[in-house]
């Protein structure tokens, strides 16, 4: 792990690796996890934008030039994994697409469920092409963050939230079968992204958060699945609970071997940083929903507050709390965030 090069401007990759090594880089790294905003950059509709790898590549590169953030994000939309399983995707003009009717309606559907073959899936191949092109453009100067939905969380889209909760409580055999299929897919999908050029994988697992699953058998199931799955992914991983609370499960997440943790906006960033100190970096935790109505001054204040709470000593990447910036967040606010990180996030830190 490289140390700080005093006074030198680091590449995004150097900056992120330094902070993940619990040292202070030249400034606080920040991840604007922008997906749909690329469509606006190119003057396209959201569905049209995600239909071609070259659009997303161009969108990601333009957004990074505009905001100067420290990662490239080939993630398109969560419902894509359901699309790969043969499910429906419902598009909107002003937000991410939703998954449609559940593909699992009966127990038989679970027994006959097959993991999609990654390279035979047009939508997944599109993401692999995006990653490959971004890797060619960014070489090793900017981290490319691949994304998977955890085997434990994917059933919310596969069968609906309520049916899945009941399955967890009442039908352990079906639960195990579903995890087996989803885990095979998740590992293959993550490793295909790594082979295409992704630097790391963000493992989205909101259901493992204590916000959603209770302590006890199903929470243990979530972490059992996470430990097994992450051990088979051939890259560093970040564990993201997508707005779910983290503090009570920090040690469980560290035990999965993850390098970073996405923090909920409902939690104190300083407390989570202290709980993770020197063991796992923290990523967060701007409120993406509120961000829609921030003024530039509020954006700057939020950056100063977050830096003051969590940036000392490295181990902190500034980001939103959910893993995707809503379509309704303005360019003005994003530019204000970027400017504030460059002003207030420089190491050594000034008094924020």
């Amino acid at each position, binding site marked *: 792990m490289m140390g700080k090069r005093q006074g030198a401007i680091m590449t995004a990759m150097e900056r992120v690796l330094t902070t993940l090594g619990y040292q202070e880089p030249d400034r606080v790294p920040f991840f604007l996890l922008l997906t749909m905003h690329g469509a606006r950059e190119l003057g396209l509709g959201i569905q049209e934008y995600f239909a071609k790898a070259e659009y997303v590549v161009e969108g990601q590169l333009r957004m990074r030039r505009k905001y100067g953030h420290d990662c490239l994000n080939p993630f398109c939309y969560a419902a894509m994994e359901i699309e790969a399983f043969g499910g429906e995707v419902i598009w909107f003009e002003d937000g991410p697409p939703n*998954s*449609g009717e559940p593909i699992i309606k009966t127990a038989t559907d679970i027994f006959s469920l097959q993991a999609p073959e990654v390279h035979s899936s047009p939508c997944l191949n599109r993401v692999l092409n995006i990653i490959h092109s971004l890797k060619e453009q960014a070489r090793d100067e900017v981290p490319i963050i691949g994304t998977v939905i955890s085997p434990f969380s994917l059933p919310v889209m596969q069968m609906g939230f309520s049916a899945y909760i009941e399955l967890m*409580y009442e039908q352990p055999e079906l639960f195990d079968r579903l995890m087996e299929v989803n885990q095979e897919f998740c590992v293959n999908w993550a490793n295909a992204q790594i082979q295409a050029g992704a630097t790391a994988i963000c493992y989205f697992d909101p259901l493992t958060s204590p916000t959603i*699953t*209770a302590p006890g058998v199903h929470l243990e199931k979530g972490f059992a699945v996470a430990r097994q799955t992450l051990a088979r992914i051939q890259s560093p991983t970040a564990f993201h609970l997508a707005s779910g609370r983290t503090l009570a499960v920090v040690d469980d997440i560290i035990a999965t071997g993850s390098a970073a943790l996405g923090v909920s906006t409902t939690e104190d960033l300083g407390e989570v940083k202290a709980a993770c100190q020197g063991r796992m970096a923290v990523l967060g935790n701007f*409120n993406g929903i*509120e961000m829609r109505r921030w003024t530039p001054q509020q954006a700057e204040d939020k950056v100063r507050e977050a830096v003051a709470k969590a940036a000392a000593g490295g181990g902190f990447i500034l980001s939103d709390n959910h893993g995707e910036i809503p379509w309704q967040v303005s360019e003005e606010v994003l530019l204000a965030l970027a400017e504030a990180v460059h002003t207030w996030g420089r190491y050594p830190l000034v008094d924020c």
Partner: protein
Amino acid sequence: MISQKKEVQTFVAKLLRTDRLGAEEIFNAVQEQGSMPQTVDQLILPALETIGQGWEKGTVALAQVYMSSRICEELMIHVPLSTALQHPGYPRMAIAVLDDYHLLGKIIVSACLRASGYAFQDYGRVTSQELACKIKNDSIEIILVSALMLRSALQIKEVKRLLVEAGSPTRIVVGGAPFRFDPLLWKEVGADAMGANAAEALSAISSCIKTM
């Protein structure tokens, strides 16, 4: 009073452990001591309120909220209709989800409404235009709308606009993740109240009824 509190606490503990039989025993014991309205007011509603508060504080998980509300709903289903609580003079109500297949919030609130003796129509998944049309056609007085995505939450502005245009006085009660993350959003979209959880939705309904 102390014994009632103890019963509620024990009932909550059984619900959070998904102990259906244990919860049913307490429910039956309370019911034998009084009327069904008393059981709802003294056991079901305080229990759901406690669980809702736990969800707000982060001590109770969403899966527990869901399973608890389902158990309470099942307990009420077994009560003969002739003795089931009917809220006197309750308004015409409906519940809906805007543009979303994630129906958990609606299911939880629906279960709590049924367990609390409210009657209502379930519109399922609808667009803003469909919802405004159904509200007008059915002369709905209180509509409960659940939204998971920010864009769905913002659609409530359109529902409100269509209702105002039609001169409808229908009260709108909203709930769901976007409203929890942005506490000013419900006012912005023109809702009359927001329920951060099912118990708060019940309180919002009571408030709406008082001002109607």
